[in-house]
């Protein structure tokens, strides 16, 4: 009786451990598999269809042929510039708002922050991107049209605003956590030296939380880069460099989404789209590495 119970315990102990280990390993294998798959598919443009990486990254001539023979042009510069431009603008709009919200909900009015703002921000995160895109298309695009007296509202500005709203909750909640975790000794020290609350916030709190805030910004940027649906609905998808904030352009994710259904499997067009997917994967990898480097620095400082 006793031994069987012991055996049972033993099995239970190792069953849980086993499942956890398998799941953990599976995740690693899955990530590596996706990376390898993207690498395999995305490199075809350069191996099978003989395009140079320079052409892909720095040419704006985009005319891939939808056949297995190839022979088109695969310059993706317009899409790359479109992605960078909209994300940079989105950050520019979003970061000040996010930081202020984070400061307000943690230090200025923690009670209101905990009871109302935090749940509100969490709800924000849960809204599906198609809803943002739709609202953008129905509300924002016509608004830009009437406010700026242009013929159509689909533009870089519309895309940047939609993205800014989407990354706002991410940046807010992560930087609020960073601010909350600042050692209270620093804060008390600042007060002890006679600073006002605002002096404490911008001279002590923000510098102390800066690596956490940077992590928040990079996370927001990563989300903005990968967002396809909402942006593609409002960016206008014109294959040209934008000459103003009100001009339409295109970005990587929208370009993949609009042609992936039609481009023949195994053709040059398809390969070029996979290369763009690979590029997005590499970009997000770089962002993750930056976050790791940042949190490493934070760990060393503490």
């Amino acid at each position, binding site marked *: 009786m006793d031994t069987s119970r012991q055996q049972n315990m033993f099995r239970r102990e190792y069953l849980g451990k086993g499942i956890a280990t398998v799941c953990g390993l599976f995740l690693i294998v899955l990530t590596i598999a996706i990376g390898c798959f993207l690498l395999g598919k995305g490199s075809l443009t350069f191996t099978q269809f003989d395009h140079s990486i320079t052409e892909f990254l720095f040419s704006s001539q985009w005319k891939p042929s939808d*056949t297995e023979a190839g022979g088109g042009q695969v310059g993706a510069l317009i899409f790359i510039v479109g992605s960078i431009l909209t994300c940079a603008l989105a950050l520019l709009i979003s970061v000040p708002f996010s930081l202020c919200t984070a400061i307000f909900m943690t230090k200025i009015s923690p009670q209101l922050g905990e009871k109302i703002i935090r749940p509100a921000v969490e709800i924000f995160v849960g809204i599906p991107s198609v809803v943002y895109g739709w609202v953008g298309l129905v509300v924002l695009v016509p608004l830009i049209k009437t406010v700026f007296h242009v013929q*159509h509202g689909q533009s870089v500005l519309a895309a940047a605003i939609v993205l800014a709203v989407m990354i706002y909750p991410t940046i807010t909640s992560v930087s609020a956590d960073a601010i909350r975790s600042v050692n209270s000794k620093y804060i008390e020290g600042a007060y002890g030296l006679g600073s006002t609350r605002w002096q404490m916030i911008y001279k002590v709190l923000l510098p102390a939380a800066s690596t956490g805030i940077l992590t928040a910004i990079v996370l927001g940027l990563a989300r903005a880069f990968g967002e396809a649906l909402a942006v593609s609905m409002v960016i206008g998808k*014109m294959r*040209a460099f934008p000459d103003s904030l009100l001009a339409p352009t295109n970005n990587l994710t929208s370009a993949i989404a*609009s042609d992936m259904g039609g481009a023949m499997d195994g053709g040059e067009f398809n390969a070029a789209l996979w290369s763009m997917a690979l590029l997005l994967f590499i970009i997000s990898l770089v962002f993750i590495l930056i976050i790791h480097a940042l949190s490493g620095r934070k760990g060393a400082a503490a």
Partner: protein
Amino acid sequence: MNLKKIAAAGLSVVVLAGLAGCGGQDKAADKKAGSDLSGKVTASGSSALLPLAKDASAKFKAENPNVSMTLNAGGSGTGLKQVSEGSVDIGMSDVFAEEKLPAEKAKELVDHKVCVITMAPIVNKDVGATVKNLTKAQIQDIFTAKITNWKDVGGPDEPIVLVTRPSTSGTRALFTKYAMDGKEEASNKSLETDDSGTLIQSISQTKGAIGYVALSYLVNNSDVATVSIDGVEPTLENTYNGKYPVWGYEHMYTKGEAKGAVKAFLDYIVSDKYAGELEKQGYAVTSKMTVQR
């Protein structure tokens, strides 16, 4: 601990039930036997043809409950490639197989022209009030951005906004071939939309906008105005009598001659019984065409 056991037991019951369900369904269907025909039909390809194929398959299955149908989009090229490799029974395509596949592979495929699709230029209503007709040359100049204001073609003094489809779209391929005579649209001057429904919406909301859609999207839609080409209205009659030029076949390709359930399904789509449905949805019936391509 008990919870885990219960969960495991529950899970296995679900899995078993699922397996049993799969097996059971086939048997049940065998017994019902509304008709003797049975088998599996798989199809993939053109997203323009998919709604029609779905409608036809629903009605076909009502008569032949033993046939199971699996339909997928994926684009004309993918459909052609998959049928040529034998991974699906039917490859749906907006274009002839020769345009996508190497000649020796295209030769193995048998073409079934299930219907004819007509593409119409559409404009925002403020333009449609004055511009009812464009010549082919004017359309080409507009879409290549040589004409950029409606006043040059007898319309209001408004800049022209081009709204088009992605370069892999079958709709765009047909329009480029028969309305543009092969000339490429000015992609750097046009707003691109992923599907025809969205395209109609942006045209109806944007002053001075012009684009093109299949007639099937204009059934029961009065948000936009159609434009005649060289004085010929884009209608099914004008497609049948050959006066209106911008139309193309919707193809369902099989590898070798179709057999069994696949053949029955293809016969059903082109049957007189289904022809009325086709026209109701804005597609033209292949057998009524007085011109061929």
